[in-house]
Protein backbone atom coordinates (compact mmCIF):
# COMPACT_ATOMS: atom_id res chain seq x y z
CA UNK A 1 0.00 0.00 0.00
CA UNK A 2 1.53 3.31 -1.08
CA UNK A 3 0.09 6.48 0.41
CA UNK A 4 0.87 9.87 -1.03
CA UNK A 5 -0.28 13.10 0.60
CA UNK A 6 0.17 15.55 -2.21
CA UNK A 7 -0.89 18.87 -3.67
CA UNK A 8 -2.16 17.55 -6.97
CA UNK A 9 -4.54 18.01 -9.85
CA UNK A 10 -5.96 15.23 -12.00
CA UNK A 11 -7.78 14.57 -15.23
CA UNK A 12 -9.72 11.44 -16.10
CA UNK A 13 -10.73 10.30 -19.56
CA UNK A 14 -12.80 7.23 -20.17
CA UNK A 15 -16.52 6.63 -19.79
CA UNK A 16 -16.66 10.38 -19.23
CA UNK A 17 -14.21 13.16 -18.60
CA UNK A 18 -13.51 14.90 -15.30
CA UNK A 19 -11.01 17.28 -13.87
CA UNK A 20 -9.84 17.82 -10.32
CA UNK A 21 -8.30 21.22 -9.70
CA UNK A 22 -5.17 21.63 -7.59
CA UNK A 23 -5.57 20.79 -3.89
CA UNK A 24 -3.98 18.70 -1.14
CA UNK A 25 -5.32 15.16 -1.33
CA UNK A 26 -4.49 11.57 -0.46
CA UNK A 27 -3.50 9.30 -3.32
CA UNK A 28 -3.73 5.61 -2.51
CA UNK A 29 -2.11 2.91 -4.61
CA UNK A 30 -3.09 -0.56 -3.52
CA UNK A 31 -0.96 -3.64 -4.04
CA UNK A 32 -3.49 -4.99 -6.54
CA UNK A 33 -3.03 -1.89 -8.73
CA UNK A 34 -6.10 0.13 -7.72
CA UNK A 35 -5.50 3.87 -7.60
CA UNK A 36 -7.78 6.22 -5.67
CA UNK A 37 -7.71 9.95 -4.93
CA UNK A 38 -9.33 10.88 -1.62
CA UNK A 39 -10.34 14.22 -0.12
CA UNK A 40 -10.94 14.84 3.58
CA UNK A 41 -14.67 14.36 3.08
CA UNK A 42 -16.91 11.81 1.40
CA UNK A 43 -16.53 8.85 3.74
CA UNK A 44 -15.08 5.82 1.98
CA UNK A 45 -15.67 7.14 -1.51
CA UNK A 46 -12.74 8.53 -3.50
CA UNK A 47 -13.03 11.61 -5.73
CA UNK A 48 -11.54 9.65 -8.56
CA UNK A 49 -10.41 6.08 -8.90
CA UNK A 50 -9.27 3.39 -11.29
CA UNK A 51 -9.99 -0.23 -10.49
CA UNK A 52 -7.32 -2.88 -11.14
CA UNK A 53 -5.95 -4.08 -13.47
CA UNK A 54 -4.11 -0.86 -14.16
CA UNK A 55 -0.69 0.15 -15.26
CA UNK A 56 0.90 3.09 -13.51
CA UNK A 57 3.67 5.06 -15.21
CA UNK A 58 5.62 7.25 -12.76
CA UNK A 59 6.99 10.22 -14.70
CA UNK A 60 8.30 11.99 -11.57
CA UNK A 61 5.85 14.83 -11.02
CA UNK A 62 3.22 13.17 -13.15
CA UNK A 63 1.56 9.78 -12.78
CA UNK A 64 -0.31 8.21 -15.68
CA UNK A 65 -2.68 5.36 -14.86
CA UNK A 66 -4.18 3.43 -17.75
CA UNK A 67 -6.25 0.28 -18.04
CA UNK A 68 -7.10 -2.14 -20.86
CA UNK A 69 -10.50 -0.47 -21.34
CA UNK A 70 -8.72 2.64 -22.52
CA UNK A 71 -9.48 4.71 -19.45
CA UNK A 72 -6.76 7.12 -18.42
CA UNK A 73 -6.15 9.01 -15.16
CA UNK A 74 -3.38 11.60 -15.12
CA UNK A 75 -2.28 12.95 -11.74
CA UNK A 76 -0.06 16.01 -11.68
CA UNK A 77 1.98 16.05 -8.45
CA UNK A 78 2.68 19.71 -7.68
CA UNK A 79 4.08 19.04 -4.22
CA UNK A 80 4.56 15.74 -2.38
CA UNK A 81 4.00 16.19 1.37
CA UNK A 82 4.22 12.55 2.40
CA UNK A 83 5.09 9.39 0.53
CA UNK A 84 4.96 6.14 2.49
CA UNK A 85 4.63 2.49 1.59
CA UNK A 86 3.55 -0.34 3.85
CA UNK A 87 3.08 -4.01 3.30
CA UNK A 88 -0.35 -4.88 4.66
CA UNK A 89 -1.44 -8.32 5.83
CA UNK A 90 -3.28 -10.47 3.37
CA UNK A 91 -7.00 -10.04 3.63
CA UNK A 92 -8.66 -12.12 6.31
CA UNK A 93 -12.11 -11.22 5.11
CA UNK A 94 -14.95 -9.58 6.92
CA UNK A 95 -16.65 -11.52 9.68
CA UNK A 96 -20.30 -10.62 10.06
CA UNK A 97 -21.68 -10.51 13.58
CA UNK A 98 -24.97 -12.03 14.59
CA UNK A 99 -24.71 -15.37 12.90
CA UNK A 100 -27.84 -17.21 13.81
CA UNK A 101 -26.17 -20.37 15.03
CA UNK A 102 -24.01 -18.36 17.41
CA UNK A 103 -27.04 -16.48 18.67
CA UNK A 104 -28.88 -19.74 19.11
CA UNK A 105 -25.99 -21.30 21.04
CA UNK A 106 -25.62 -18.25 23.30
CA UNK A 107 -29.34 -18.05 23.98
CA UNK A 108 -29.45 -21.77 24.76
CA UNK A 109 -26.73 -21.12 27.33
CA UNK A 110 -28.29 -17.92 28.71
CA UNK A 111 -32.05 -18.25 28.15
CA UNK A 112 -32.71 -15.62 30.81
CA UNK A 113 -31.84 -13.05 28.15
CA UNK A 114 -35.03 -14.14 26.41
CA UNK A 115 -37.20 -14.03 29.50
CA UNK A 116 -36.44 -14.10 33.20
CA UNK A 117 -36.69 -17.60 34.65
CA UNK A 118 -36.60 -19.42 31.31
CA UNK A 119 -34.60 -22.64 31.08
CA UNK A 120 -33.55 -24.28 27.83
CA UNK A 121 -34.69 -27.88 27.40
CA UNK A 122 -33.30 -28.60 23.93
CA UNK A 123 -31.72 -26.93 20.94
CA UNK A 124 -33.05 -27.80 17.46
CA UNK A 125 -36.17 -29.45 18.83
CA UNK A 126 -37.68 -31.58 16.04
CA UNK A 127 -41.10 -31.01 14.57
CA UNK A 128 -42.28 -32.69 11.39
CA UNK A 129 -41.89 -29.32 9.61
CA UNK A 130 -38.27 -28.97 10.69
CA UNK A 131 -36.52 -28.15 13.95
CA UNK A 132 -37.51 -25.19 16.11
CA UNK A 133 -34.37 -23.41 17.38
CA UNK A 134 -34.94 -23.72 21.13
CA UNK A 135 -37.48 -25.43 23.31
CA UNK A 136 -37.61 -23.86 26.75
CA UNK A 137 -39.66 -24.05 29.94
CA UNK A 138 -40.83 -21.01 31.90
CA UNK A 139 -40.79 -20.95 35.73
CA UNK A 140 -44.38 -22.27 35.76
CA UNK A 141 -43.38 -25.27 33.66
CA UNK A 142 -45.00 -24.03 30.46
CA UNK A 143 -43.32 -24.92 27.16
CA UNK A 144 -41.89 -22.05 25.10
CA UNK A 145 -40.78 -22.50 21.49
CA UNK A 146 -38.15 -19.97 20.46
CA UNK A 147 -37.22 -19.06 16.90
CA UNK A 148 -33.94 -17.17 16.60
CA UNK A 149 -33.06 -14.86 13.70
CA UNK A 150 -30.36 -12.30 13.16
CA UNK A 151 -32.93 -9.85 11.80
CA UNK A 152 -36.49 -10.62 12.80
CA UNK A 153 -38.81 -10.30 9.82
CA UNK A 154 -42.30 -11.44 8.97
CA UNK A 155 -41.20 -14.74 7.42
CA UNK A 156 -39.56 -15.72 10.71
CA UNK A 157 -42.86 -15.19 12.52
CA UNK A 158 -44.62 -17.27 9.84
CA UNK A 159 -42.06 -20.03 10.36
CA UNK A 160 -42.56 -20.01 14.13
CA UNK A 161 -46.35 -20.04 13.65
CA UNK A 162 -46.04 -23.25 11.61
CA UNK A 163 -43.84 -24.91 14.25
CA UNK A 164 -46.24 -23.86 17.01
CA UNK A 165 -49.15 -25.37 15.15
CA UNK A 166 -47.32 -28.73 15.07
CA UNK A 167 -46.06 -28.48 18.66
CA UNK A 168 -49.56 -27.81 20.01
CA UNK A 169 -50.48 -31.32 18.84
CA UNK A 170 -47.96 -32.85 21.26
CA UNK A 171 -49.90 -33.59 24.46
CA UNK A 172 -46.68 -33.60 26.48
CA UNK A 173 -45.94 -30.03 25.48
CA UNK A 174 -49.22 -28.26 24.81
CA UNK A 175 -49.97 -25.49 25.41
CA UNK A 176 -46.79 -24.11 23.83
CA UNK A 177 -46.01 -20.39 23.85
CA UNK A 178 -44.06 -18.84 20.99
CA UNK A 179 -41.17 -16.42 21.41
CA UNK A 180 -39.48 -14.73 18.47
CA UNK A 181 -35.92 -13.57 19.20
CA UNK A 182 -33.61 -11.46 17.04
CA UNK A 183 -31.03 -8.73 17.40
CA UNK A 184 -33.57 -6.46 15.69
CA UNK A 185 -37.24 -7.24 15.28
CA UNK A 186 -38.84 -5.31 12.40
CA UNK A 187 -42.01 -3.38 13.23
CA UNK A 188 -44.16 -5.50 10.86
CA UNK A 189 -42.83 -8.67 12.48
CA UNK A 190 -43.69 -7.27 15.93
CA UNK A 191 -47.26 -6.53 14.84
CA UNK A 192 -47.71 -9.94 13.26
CA UNK A 193 -46.21 -11.73 16.27
CA UNK A 194 -48.40 -9.81 18.72
CA UNK A 195 -51.52 -10.44 16.62
CA UNK A 196 -50.81 -14.15 16.87
CA UNK A 197 -50.09 -14.11 20.58
CA UNK A 198 -46.38 -14.72 19.96
CA UNK A 199 -43.93 -12.84 22.15
CA UNK A 200 -40.88 -11.13 20.65
CA UNK A 201 -37.63 -10.06 22.19
CA UNK A 202 -34.58 -8.20 20.94
CA UNK A 203 -31.29 -9.59 22.19
CA UNK A 204 -27.94 -7.87 22.29
CA UNK A 205 -25.28 -10.09 20.77
CA UNK A 206 -22.49 -8.08 22.40
CA UNK A 207 -24.00 -8.52 25.84
CA UNK A 208 -24.62 -12.19 25.16
CA UNK A 209 -21.02 -12.74 24.28
CA UNK A 210 -20.03 -10.98 27.43
CA UNK A 211 -17.61 -8.94 25.33
CA UNK A 212 -19.07 -5.56 26.18
CA UNK A 213 -20.14 -6.68 29.59
CA UNK A 214 -17.41 -7.36 32.13
CA UNK A 215 -20.16 -7.10 34.71
CA UNK A 216 -22.55 -10.05 34.35
CA UNK A 217 -26.23 -9.27 34.83
CA UNK A 218 -28.84 -10.89 37.00
CA UNK A 219 -31.04 -11.37 33.94
Amino acid at each position, binding site marked *: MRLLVTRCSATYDGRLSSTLSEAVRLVMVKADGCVAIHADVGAYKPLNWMNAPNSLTDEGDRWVVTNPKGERLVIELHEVLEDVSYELDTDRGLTLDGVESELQALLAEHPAHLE*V*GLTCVQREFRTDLGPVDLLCRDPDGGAVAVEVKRIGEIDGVEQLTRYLERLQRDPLLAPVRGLFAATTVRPQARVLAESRGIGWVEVDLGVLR*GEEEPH*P*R*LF
Partner: protein
Amino acid sequence: MKLRAERTEFADAVSWATRTVGARVTLPALSGVLLEAGEGKLVCRATDLEVAAEIAIPVQIDEPGRVLLPGRLLAQLVARFPDAPVELTGESDRVEISCGRATFHVRGMQAEDFPSLAGPAEDAPSGRLRADAFARMVSQVARAASTDEGRPVLTGVQVTAADGRITAAATDSYRLAVRSLDFEDAIEGSALVPARSLQEAAKAATEVGGSVTIILEEGQVSFLFGDRRLTTKLIEGSFPNYRALLPDAHETSVVVERAALAEALQRVAIVAMGQANTPVTLTFTDGSVELAATNQEMGDAAEAVPAEIEGDGLSIAFNPGFLLGGLEATGTDRVRIELRDGLKPAVLRPHQDDTEAATDDLTYLLMPMRVS
Protein backbone atom coordinates in the same frame (compact mmCIF):
# COMPACT_ATOMS: atom_id res chain seq x y z
CA MET B 1 -57.09 37.75 42.90
CA LYS B 2 -56.04 39.29 46.17
CA LEU B 3 -54.55 37.39 49.06
CA ARG B 4 -52.18 37.57 51.98
CA ALA B 5 -49.99 34.60 52.90
CA GLU B 6 -47.48 33.79 55.57
CA ARG B 7 -44.05 34.05 53.94
CA THR B 8 -42.46 30.78 55.09
CA GLU B 9 -45.51 28.71 54.20
CA PHE B 10 -45.84 30.38 50.82
CA ALA B 11 -42.13 30.01 50.04
CA ASP B 12 -42.15 26.34 51.07
CA ALA B 13 -45.26 25.64 48.99
CA VAL B 14 -43.91 27.26 45.81
CA SER B 15 -40.50 25.70 46.25
CA TRP B 16 -41.95 22.23 46.87
CA ALA B 17 -44.26 22.35 43.85
CA THR B 18 -41.55 23.53 41.44
CA ARG B 19 -38.82 21.28 42.81
CA THR B 20 -40.97 18.16 42.89
CA VAL B 21 -41.93 18.48 39.26
CA GLY B 22 -38.43 19.21 38.01
CA ALA B 23 -37.37 21.11 34.94
CA ARG B 24 -38.32 18.91 32.01
CA VAL B 25 -40.39 21.55 30.32
CA THR B 26 -41.97 20.87 26.95
CA LEU B 27 -44.67 23.57 26.98
CA PRO B 28 -44.24 27.13 28.29
CA ALA B 29 -47.24 26.67 30.61
CA LEU B 30 -45.44 23.78 32.28
CA SER B 31 -42.76 26.12 33.59
CA GLY B 32 -45.46 27.82 35.63
CA VAL B 33 -46.97 27.34 39.05
CA LEU B 34 -50.74 27.64 39.08
CA LEU B 35 -51.99 29.51 42.13
CA GLU B 36 -55.65 29.05 42.91
CA ALA B 37 -57.14 31.04 45.79
CA GLY B 38 -60.54 30.14 47.20
CA GLU B 39 -62.26 28.86 50.33
CA GLY B 40 -59.61 30.16 52.68
CA LYS B 41 -56.71 28.36 51.08
CA LEU B 42 -54.23 28.77 48.30
CA VAL B 43 -53.54 25.72 46.16
CA CYS B 44 -50.21 25.67 44.27
CA ARG B 45 -49.95 23.25 41.36
CA ALA B 46 -47.10 22.29 39.04
CA THR B 47 -46.72 19.51 36.50
CA ASP B 48 -44.46 18.25 33.71
CA LEU B 49 -47.26 16.00 32.40
CA GLU B 50 -45.57 13.00 34.06
CA VAL B 51 -45.65 14.16 37.66
CA ALA B 52 -48.13 16.58 39.19
CA ALA B 53 -47.56 18.25 42.55
CA GLU B 54 -50.22 20.04 44.54
CA ILE B 55 -49.97 21.77 47.89
CA ALA B 56 -52.58 23.76 49.83
CA ILE B 57 -51.75 26.39 52.44
CA PRO B 58 -54.07 28.54 54.58
CA VAL B 59 -54.17 32.19 53.42
CA GLN B 60 -56.33 35.25 53.92
CA ILE B 61 -58.32 35.78 50.73
CA ASP B 62 -59.88 39.12 49.81
CA GLU B 63 -60.67 38.16 46.21
CA PRO B 64 -60.54 34.57 44.95
CA GLY B 65 -58.92 33.87 41.59
CA ARG B 66 -56.27 31.90 39.73
CA VAL B 67 -52.98 32.94 38.13
CA LEU B 68 -50.19 31.07 36.39
CA LEU B 69 -46.78 32.48 37.28
CA PRO B 70 -43.27 31.42 36.17
CA GLY B 71 -42.32 28.77 38.74
CA ARG B 72 -38.60 29.19 39.08
CA LEU B 73 -38.76 32.99 39.18
CA LEU B 74 -41.45 32.91 41.85
CA ALA B 75 -39.53 30.36 43.91
CA GLN B 76 -36.34 32.44 43.73
CA LEU B 77 -38.18 35.62 44.67
CA VAL B 78 -40.07 34.33 47.67
CA ALA B 79 -37.02 32.49 49.00
CA ARG B 80 -35.29 35.86 49.35
CA PHE B 81 -38.23 37.80 50.75
CA PRO B 82 -37.88 39.35 54.19
CA ASP B 83 -39.77 37.76 57.06
CA ALA B 84 -43.11 39.51 56.52
CA PRO B 85 -46.49 38.54 55.07
CA VAL B 86 -46.63 38.19 51.27
CA GLU B 87 -49.42 39.89 49.34
CA LEU B 88 -50.50 38.93 45.83
CA THR B 89 -52.81 41.15 43.80
CA GLY B 90 -53.89 41.23 40.15
CA GLU B 91 -54.64 38.93 37.25
CA SER B 92 -52.46 36.63 35.17
CA ASP B 93 -51.10 39.30 32.81
CA ARG B 94 -49.68 41.34 35.69
CA VAL B 95 -49.45 40.20 39.28
CA GLU B 96 -48.12 42.40 42.03
CA ILE B 97 -46.25 40.54 44.70
CA SER B 98 -45.21 42.49 47.73
CA CYS B 99 -43.47 41.61 50.96
CA GLY B 100 -42.35 44.22 53.49
CA ARG B 101 -41.03 47.12 51.43
CA ALA B 102 -40.32 45.00 48.35
CA THR B 103 -42.74 45.08 45.44
CA PHE B 104 -42.50 43.05 42.25
CA HIS B 105 -44.66 42.95 39.18
CA VAL B 106 -44.58 39.57 37.49
CA ARG B 107 -45.97 38.85 34.06
CA GLY B 108 -47.95 35.65 34.23
CA MET B 109 -49.20 33.19 31.63
CA GLN B 110 -52.72 32.22 30.62
CA ALA B 111 -54.06 30.08 33.45
CA GLU B 112 -56.20 28.23 30.90
CA ASP B 113 -53.02 26.90 29.26
CA PHE B 114 -52.11 24.97 32.39
CA PRO B 115 -52.94 21.34 31.73
CA SER B 116 -55.64 19.97 33.96
CA LEU B 117 -54.49 16.57 35.14
CA ALA B 118 -56.93 14.27 36.78
CA GLY B 119 -56.35 13.84 40.49
CA PRO B 120 -57.35 10.63 42.21
CA ALA B 121 -61.03 9.72 42.04
CA GLU B 122 -63.01 10.42 45.21
CA ASP B 123 -64.00 6.79 45.63
CA ALA B 124 -60.61 5.26 44.68
CA PRO B 125 -59.43 2.80 47.34
CA SER B 126 -56.57 4.18 49.41
CA GLY B 127 -53.89 2.56 51.51
CA ARG B 128 -52.05 4.16 54.40
CA LEU B 129 -48.48 3.74 55.63
CA ARG B 130 -46.36 5.40 58.25
CA ALA B 131 -44.53 8.21 56.46
CA ASP B 132 -41.12 7.49 58.00
CA ALA B 133 -41.36 3.77 57.19
CA PHE B 134 -42.42 4.57 53.62
CA ALA B 135 -39.53 7.00 53.16
CA ARG B 136 -37.09 4.45 54.53
CA MET B 137 -38.40 1.73 52.22
CA VAL B 138 -38.02 3.99 49.19
CA SER B 139 -34.47 4.99 50.13
CA GLN B 140 -33.54 1.33 50.52
CA VAL B 141 -35.05 0.18 47.23
CA ALA B 142 -35.05 3.02 44.69
CA ARG B 143 -31.24 3.16 44.65
CA ALA B 144 -31.22 -0.12 42.71
CA ALA B 145 -33.35 1.29 39.88
CA SER B 146 -31.66 1.95 36.56
CA THR B 147 -31.05 5.43 35.19
CA ASP B 148 -30.81 4.12 31.64
CA GLU B 149 -33.83 5.46 29.76
CA GLY B 150 -33.10 2.83 27.12
CA ARG B 151 -34.84 0.27 29.33
CA PRO B 152 -37.72 2.29 30.80
CA VAL B 153 -39.21 -0.51 32.92
CA LEU B 154 -35.95 -0.71 34.89
CA THR B 155 -36.13 3.01 35.76
CA GLY B 156 -39.20 2.23 37.84
CA VAL B 157 -39.92 0.70 41.21
CA GLN B 158 -42.44 -2.12 41.14
CA VAL B 159 -44.89 -1.53 43.96
CA THR B 160 -47.17 -4.41 44.85
CA ALA B 161 -49.87 -4.23 47.49
CA ALA B 162 -51.28 -7.55 48.64
CA ASP B 163 -52.22 -9.35 51.86
CA GLY B 164 -51.90 -6.25 54.01
CA ARG B 165 -48.35 -5.58 52.88
CA ILE B 166 -46.70 -3.31 50.35
CA THR B 167 -43.63 -4.60 48.52
CA ALA B 168 -41.26 -2.36 46.56
CA ALA B 169 -38.70 -3.82 44.13
CA ALA B 170 -36.16 -2.17 41.85
CA THR B 171 -33.38 -3.52 39.69
CA ASP B 172 -30.90 -2.21 37.15
CA SER B 173 -30.14 -5.82 36.15
CA TYR B 174 -26.88 -5.82 38.14
CA ARG B 175 -28.58 -5.68 41.52
CA LEU B 176 -32.06 -6.01 42.90
CA ALA B 177 -33.51 -4.49 46.05
CA VAL B 178 -36.80 -5.76 47.50
CA ARG B 179 -38.46 -4.55 50.68
CA SER B 180 -41.84 -5.23 52.23
CA LEU B 181 -43.76 -3.23 54.79
CA ASP B 182 -47.09 -3.59 56.63
CA PHE B 183 -49.91 -1.24 55.69
CA GLU B 184 -51.84 0.63 58.37
CA ASP B 185 -54.84 0.53 56.00
CA ALA B 186 -54.29 -2.00 53.22
CA ILE B 187 -55.15 -1.95 49.51
CA GLU B 188 -54.53 -4.43 46.71
CA GLY B 189 -52.88 -3.74 43.34
CA SER B 190 -49.58 -3.10 41.68
CA ALA B 191 -47.87 -0.25 39.85
CA LEU B 192 -44.56 0.47 38.14
CA VAL B 193 -43.72 3.89 39.58
CA PRO B 194 -40.88 6.06 38.17
CA ALA B 195 -38.07 5.90 40.75
CA ARG B 196 -37.56 9.68 40.64
CA SER B 197 -41.20 10.37 41.49
CA LEU B 198 -41.11 7.85 44.29
CA GLN B 199 -37.99 9.47 45.72
CA GLU B 200 -39.73 12.85 45.64
CA ALA B 201 -42.71 11.28 47.41
CA ALA B 202 -40.34 9.86 50.03
CA LYS B 203 -38.74 13.27 50.51
CA ALA B 204 -42.16 14.83 51.05
CA ALA B 205 -43.05 12.02 53.48
CA THR B 206 -39.93 12.80 55.53
CA GLU B 207 -40.70 16.53 55.57
CA VAL B 208 -44.36 16.19 56.49
CA GLY B 209 -44.21 13.11 58.76
CA GLY B 210 -47.32 11.38 60.05
CA SER B 211 -48.72 9.01 57.49
CA VAL B 212 -48.81 8.79 53.73
CA THR B 213 -51.90 7.77 51.79
CA ILE B 214 -51.38 5.82 48.57
CA ILE B 215 -54.04 5.71 45.88
CA LEU B 216 -53.46 3.22 43.09
CA GLU B 217 -55.44 3.80 39.91
CA GLU B 218 -55.29 2.80 36.28
CA GLY B 219 -52.19 4.46 34.81
CA GLN B 220 -51.34 6.62 37.83
CA VAL B 221 -50.54 6.58 41.51
CA SER B 222 -51.08 9.39 44.02
CA PHE B 223 -49.31 9.99 47.32
CA LEU B 224 -51.04 12.23 49.85
CA PHE B 225 -49.23 13.81 52.77
CA GLY B 226 -51.32 16.26 54.80
CA ASP B 227 -52.04 19.11 52.42
CA ARG B 228 -49.64 17.87 49.73
CA ARG B 229 -50.37 15.55 46.87
CA LEU B 230 -48.04 14.04 44.30
CA THR B 231 -49.57 12.18 41.38
CA THR B 232 -47.35 10.41 38.89
CA LYS B 233 -47.99 8.49 35.71
CA LEU B 234 -46.95 4.87 35.80
CA ILE B 235 -44.36 3.30 33.50
CA GLU B 236 -45.91 1.05 30.91
CA GLY B 237 -44.49 -2.42 30.43
CA SER B 238 -43.95 -5.42 32.59
CA PHE B 239 -41.34 -5.50 35.31
CA PRO B 240 -39.09 -8.60 35.25
CA ASN B 241 -40.29 -11.53 37.34
CA TYR B 242 -37.71 -10.81 40.01
CA ARG B 243 -38.97 -13.45 42.41
CA ALA B 244 -37.48 -16.09 40.11
CA LEU B 245 -34.06 -14.51 40.72
CA LEU B 246 -34.10 -14.74 44.50
CA PRO B 247 -31.97 -17.72 45.57
CA ASP B 248 -33.62 -20.13 47.97
CA ALA B 249 -30.42 -21.45 49.53
CA HIS B 250 -26.85 -20.44 50.29
CA GLU B 251 -23.59 -22.24 51.07
CA THR B 252 -21.80 -19.58 53.06
CA SER B 253 -23.19 -16.99 55.45
CA VAL B 254 -21.16 -14.04 56.70
CA VAL B 255 -22.03 -11.56 59.44
CA VAL B 256 -19.91 -8.43 59.51
CA GLU B 257 -19.90 -4.94 61.06
CA ARG B 258 -21.47 -2.74 58.44
CA ALA B 259 -19.57 0.49 59.12
CA ALA B 260 -16.19 -1.29 59.28
CA LEU B 261 -16.81 -3.09 55.99
CA ALA B 262 -18.16 0.03 54.28
CA GLU B 263 -15.19 2.12 55.37
CA ALA B 264 -12.66 -0.51 54.29
CA LEU B 265 -14.50 -0.88 51.00
CA GLN B 266 -14.38 2.86 50.34
CA ARG B 267 -10.64 2.95 51.08
CA VAL B 268 -9.82 -0.02 48.89
CA ALA B 269 -12.13 1.24 46.14
CA ILE B 270 -10.03 4.38 45.77
CA VAL B 271 -7.52 2.22 43.92
CA ALA B 272 -10.29 0.83 41.76
CA MET B 273 -11.54 4.28 40.86
CA GLY B 274 -10.65 5.90 37.61
CA GLN B 275 -10.87 2.61 35.80
CA ALA B 276 -14.42 1.70 34.97
CA ASN B 277 -15.57 -1.71 36.06
CA THR B 278 -12.64 -2.42 38.35
CA PRO B 279 -14.00 -4.83 40.94
CA VAL B 280 -13.11 -5.17 44.59
CA THR B 281 -12.51 -8.80 45.52
CA LEU B 282 -13.74 -10.07 48.89
CA THR B 283 -12.09 -13.22 50.22
CA PHE B 284 -13.89 -14.83 53.13
CA THR B 285 -11.59 -16.97 55.26
CA ASP B 286 -11.37 -17.91 58.95
CA GLY B 287 -12.77 -15.04 60.94
CA SER B 288 -12.17 -12.28 58.43
CA VAL B 289 -13.02 -10.84 55.07
CA GLU B 290 -10.12 -9.52 53.04
CA LEU B 291 -10.85 -6.79 50.51
CA ALA B 292 -8.50 -6.32 47.60
CA ALA B 293 -8.40 -4.21 44.46
CA THR B 294 -5.81 -3.95 41.72
CA ASN B 295 -5.46 -1.18 39.20
CA GLN B 296 -2.74 -1.68 36.63
CA GLU B 297 -2.05 2.05 36.45
CA MET B 298 -2.28 3.00 40.12
CA GLY B 299 -1.29 -0.03 42.17
CA ASP B 300 -3.17 -2.24 44.56
CA ALA B 301 -4.83 -2.16 47.97
CA ALA B 302 -5.85 -4.72 50.59
CA GLU B 303 -7.57 -4.53 53.95
CA ALA B 304 -9.05 -7.14 56.29
CA VAL B 305 -12.19 -6.79 58.43
CA PRO B 306 -13.23 -9.28 61.14
CA ALA B 307 -16.26 -11.37 60.17
CA GLU B 308 -18.25 -14.35 61.43
CA ILE B 309 -18.29 -16.95 58.70
CA GLU B 310 -20.45 -20.05 58.50
CA GLY B 311 -19.71 -22.48 55.69
CA ASP B 312 -16.83 -22.72 53.23
CA GLY B 313 -14.52 -19.81 52.54
CA LEU B 314 -14.65 -18.30 49.08
CA SER B 315 -13.66 -15.34 46.90
CA ILE B 316 -16.11 -13.09 45.12
CA ALA B 317 -15.71 -9.76 43.31
CA PHE B 318 -18.19 -6.89 43.21
CA ASN B 319 -18.61 -3.47 41.71
CA PRO B 320 -17.64 -1.45 44.82
CA GLY B 321 -20.37 1.15 44.23
CA PHE B 322 -23.11 -1.45 44.07
CA LEU B 323 -21.83 -3.25 47.17
CA LEU B 324 -21.65 0.00 49.10
CA GLY B 325 -25.22 0.79 47.99
CA GLY B 326 -26.33 -2.51 49.46
CA LEU B 327 -24.50 -1.96 52.74
CA GLU B 328 -26.07 1.49 53.09
CA ALA B 329 -29.52 0.11 52.32
CA THR B 330 -29.45 -2.48 55.11
CA GLY B 331 -29.25 0.20 57.80
CA THR B 332 -28.37 -2.14 60.72
CA ASP B 333 -25.06 -2.12 62.63
CA ARG B 334 -24.30 -5.60 61.33
CA VAL B 335 -25.16 -7.08 57.94
CA ARG B 336 -25.49 -10.64 56.73
CA ILE B 337 -24.07 -11.67 53.36
CA GLU B 338 -25.31 -14.97 51.91
CA LEU B 339 -23.24 -16.58 49.18
CA ARG B 340 -23.31 -19.67 47.01
CA ASP B 341 -20.13 -19.35 44.98
CA GLY B 342 -17.97 -16.69 43.39
CA LEU B 343 -20.12 -16.40 40.27
CA LYS B 344 -23.64 -16.55 41.67
CA PRO B 345 -25.54 -13.56 43.04
CA ALA B 346 -24.93 -12.66 46.68
CA VAL B 347 -27.68 -11.56 49.07
CA LEU B 348 -27.25 -8.78 51.61
CA ARG B 349 -29.69 -8.50 54.51
CA PRO B 350 -29.94 -6.46 57.71
CA HIS B 351 -28.79 -8.50 60.73
CA GLN B 352 -29.63 -8.33 64.43
CA ASP B 353 -27.84 -10.63 66.87
CA ASP B 354 -31.01 -10.75 68.95
CA THR B 355 -33.25 -12.96 66.85
CA GLU B 356 -36.30 -11.44 68.56
CA ALA B 357 -35.39 -7.93 67.41
CA ALA B 358 -37.23 -6.60 64.38
CA THR B 359 -35.26 -6.06 61.17
CA ASP B 360 -36.38 -4.55 57.89
CA ASP B 361 -37.61 -7.17 55.46
CA LEU B 362 -35.00 -6.17 52.91
CA THR B 363 -33.24 -8.31 50.31
CA TYR B 364 -30.44 -6.77 48.26
CA LEU B 365 -29.32 -9.16 45.55
CA LEU B 366 -26.02 -8.34 43.89
CA MET B 367 -24.45 -9.93 40.83
CA PRO B 368 -20.71 -10.53 41.20
CA MET B 369 -18.16 -9.47 38.57
CA ARG B 370 -15.82 -11.72 36.71
CA VAL B 371 -12.19 -11.35 37.65
CA SER B 372 -9.69 -12.05 34.89
